[in-house]
């Protein structure tokens, strides 16, 4: 078929790295010394050191979850990674103060343009630490806090400590324990009662170094009646060796608050992306995860919401695209813990070539609750007969006053569709891209404009690369 790349895009957008001299380097491998080094460099309080060391013990004591997850996890050699790298920079408040090599990276990725165009605040993390962090002045005046987690711990311990590790306990899983031991970077956000942040806050996570593990830790608290949208983007260059990204993200929506968390990640295909994300929704609060996973070697991620207060709402909209040699193991968790709580899960996966998608869902509504509702839809699209998709929905609904709906479908982009589209002039890549975008269209319509454009672009890129 046609080999002409008709979509004129820079498909190597994230695939570059600059040689960088790191002032602080925890070295290769993971031990108590590594953890102590990180905590020393950061000048953390004793309770943080104790928290980290305890987490390291838990990490070592927990087996890999290969009894239910892929054996590919066994190929992660934890002794080969570097766990902390930084230039020792404080996050700059002015773009001009960002070190030149880091600035060049983010300029190439288009960060400053995005900030000017539509964001209320930006944080840009380079390997282990934030290099740039800035928020519009009017938001600081209203008491909004948006800083890196390192700064958050130092400057706002009274709020940080109250919620930190409460939604996702250290021992939740092996990788949340790992993150708790060596976390660095990520965002700390606090929105005061009643403050509605209209424009999104964005963080951009960039891995620059080889054999590196990025372990950002994000904590977002929306106080009563507050609203915020947070978006994260991620890239890494294509190195020969594997890279590990293992984040923990905790959200807390107090009474009547709304948090929307959007991820569009485009990891290169050597990245193990093992992320734990969960939110806690109090009375009448709403937490919505929009999660788009493109790229990586293996992604395991199941954003969840604990619906703790009466009338709380939780939603996960997820799109996963597994290209050749990639495995997207994604899904959602909805834990209903109060009456009249509702949850909605819509998951769409696309598998191309040898790509593999797995959906894992967990919906739990205990017997004593009333008026709870869940809707789960998972649709899979296969392109090419070698691709594979599995669905493991675990829905536990007890009691007579609760309702649940579950629908699943698998469809294929067929040769006649591609022929029809090509007969109208589209080359094979464009034809597949249009079919894939059609498949996810009803979901993408719910995304903010800028992100649906970005997602479409990434899919075009992926489809263009998959033919030919």
């Amino acid at each position, binding site marked *: 078929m046609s080999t002409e790349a008709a979509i004129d895009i820079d498909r190597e957008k994230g695939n570059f790295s600059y040689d960088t001299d790191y002032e602080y380097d925890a070295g290769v491998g993971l031990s108590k010394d590594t953890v102590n080094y990180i905590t020393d460099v950061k000048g953390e309080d004793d309770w943080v050191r104790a928290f980290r060391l305890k987490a390291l013990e838990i990490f070592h004591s927990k087996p890999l979850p290969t009894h239910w997850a892929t054996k590919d996890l066994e190929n992660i050699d934890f002794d080969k990674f570097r766990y902390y790298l930084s230039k020792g920079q404080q996050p700059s408040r002015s773009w001009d103060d960002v070190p030149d090599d880091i600035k060049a990276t983010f300029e190439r990725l288009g960060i400053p343009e995005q900030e000017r165009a539509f964001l209320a605040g930006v944080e840009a993390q380079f390997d282990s630490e934030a290099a740039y962090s800035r928020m519009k002045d009017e938001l600081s005046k209203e008491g909004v806090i948006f800083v890196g987690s390192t700064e958050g711990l130092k400057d706002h311990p009274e709020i940080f400590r109250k919620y930190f590790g409460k939604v996702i306990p250290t021992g939740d899983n092996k990788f949340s324990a790992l993150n708790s031991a060596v976390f660095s970077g990520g965002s700390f956000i606090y929105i005061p009662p009643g403050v509605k942040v209209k424009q999104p806050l964005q963080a951009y996570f960039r891995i620059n170094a080889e054999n590196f593990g990025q372990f950002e830790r994000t904590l977002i608290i929306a106080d009563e009646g507050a609203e915020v949208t947070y978006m994260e983007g991620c890239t890494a260059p294509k190195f020969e060796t594997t890279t590990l990204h293992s984040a923990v993200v905790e959200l807390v929506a107090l009474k009547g608050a709304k948090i929307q968390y959007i991820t569009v990640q485009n990891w290169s295909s050597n990245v193990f992306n093992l992320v734990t994300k969960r939110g806690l929704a109090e009375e009448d609060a709403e937490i919505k995860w929009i999660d788009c996973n493109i790229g990586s070697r293996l992604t395991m991620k199941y954003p969840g919401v604990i619906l703790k207060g009466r009338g709380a709402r939780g939603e996960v909209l997820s799109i996963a695209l597994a290209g050749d040699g990639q495995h997207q193991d994604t899904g959602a968790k909805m834990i209903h813990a109060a009456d009249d709580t509702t949850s909605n899960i819509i998951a769409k996966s696309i598998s191309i070539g040898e790509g593999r998608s797995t959906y894992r869902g967990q919906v739990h509504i205990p017997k004593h609750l009333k008026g709870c509702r869940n809707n789960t839809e998972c649709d899979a699209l296969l392109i090419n007969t070698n691709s594979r998709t599995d669905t493991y929905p675990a829905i536990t609904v007890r009691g007579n006053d609760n309702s649940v709906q579950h629908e699943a479908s698998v469809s294929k982009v067929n040769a006649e*569709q591609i*022929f029809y589209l090509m007969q109208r*002039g589209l080359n094979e890549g464009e034809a597949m891209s249009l079919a894939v975008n059609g*498949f996810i*269209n009803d979901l993408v319509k719910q995304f903010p404009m800028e992100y649906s454009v970005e997602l479409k672009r990434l899919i075009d890129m992926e489809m263009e690369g998959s033919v030919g």
Partner: protein
Amino acid sequence: MNDLNIESLNVSIDEKQILKNFSLTIPKGEVHTIMGPNGTGKSTLAKALAGHDDYTIDSGSATMDGEDILAMEVDEVSRAGLFLAFQYPIEIPGVSIANFIRAALSSRLPKGEDIDAVAYYKELYSEMERLGIDRKFTSRSVNEGFSGGEKKRCEILQMAMIKPKYCILDETDSGLDIDALKIVADGVNHMRSEDRGILVITHYQRLLNYIVPDYVHIMMEGRIVKSGDKSLALEVEERGYDWIKEEIAATV
């Protein structure tokens, strides 16, 4: 040179020969019709010219304004100027008609250039009006849940927007009631031009009451066996195909 020229084309599918030394020339400015019984290779001709993978070209040639289209990919044939109105238009879930036609037009532009959105919608709405298609259709998914008549009108809409040099309409009239048939025929007649050649493949003479062809060809067993003007179509309607078969048998 200014024609769609098919010479001694032999085409097979799964090693079964369908087109047998098929030859036909359609100069720009003319409308030709192919009629024939079921299974005689009419749709094979359309799909083989469009470059469908399932069809193997065993020998022969097909050129469009002198350009060899058999050597081209499906999308290249399309952009070179051949449009195929499908007998069974395909559903593309989630892709709106407006975006679909826009993508088709964009594929014809040089890299980096984009469609002027205002002019595009103006033209789209005016063509839709001519074809009696409600404006709400622009946001509906391509062919999904359309009635037979809606699908066929949508094919003609695409043809009108793309403005190909040569059009092949593969049984566009099948499954249409008389009102839809008239609208589709009007759409095709509107496309008639000195700069365009049109091939109408049909089972039924009734379409030719509305699209009056310059030539009518009867196709049997993979090739054209008899050609004439519109009166030939009327004769077929009246007498069926058997008399032509007998005629051929007699001349062999």
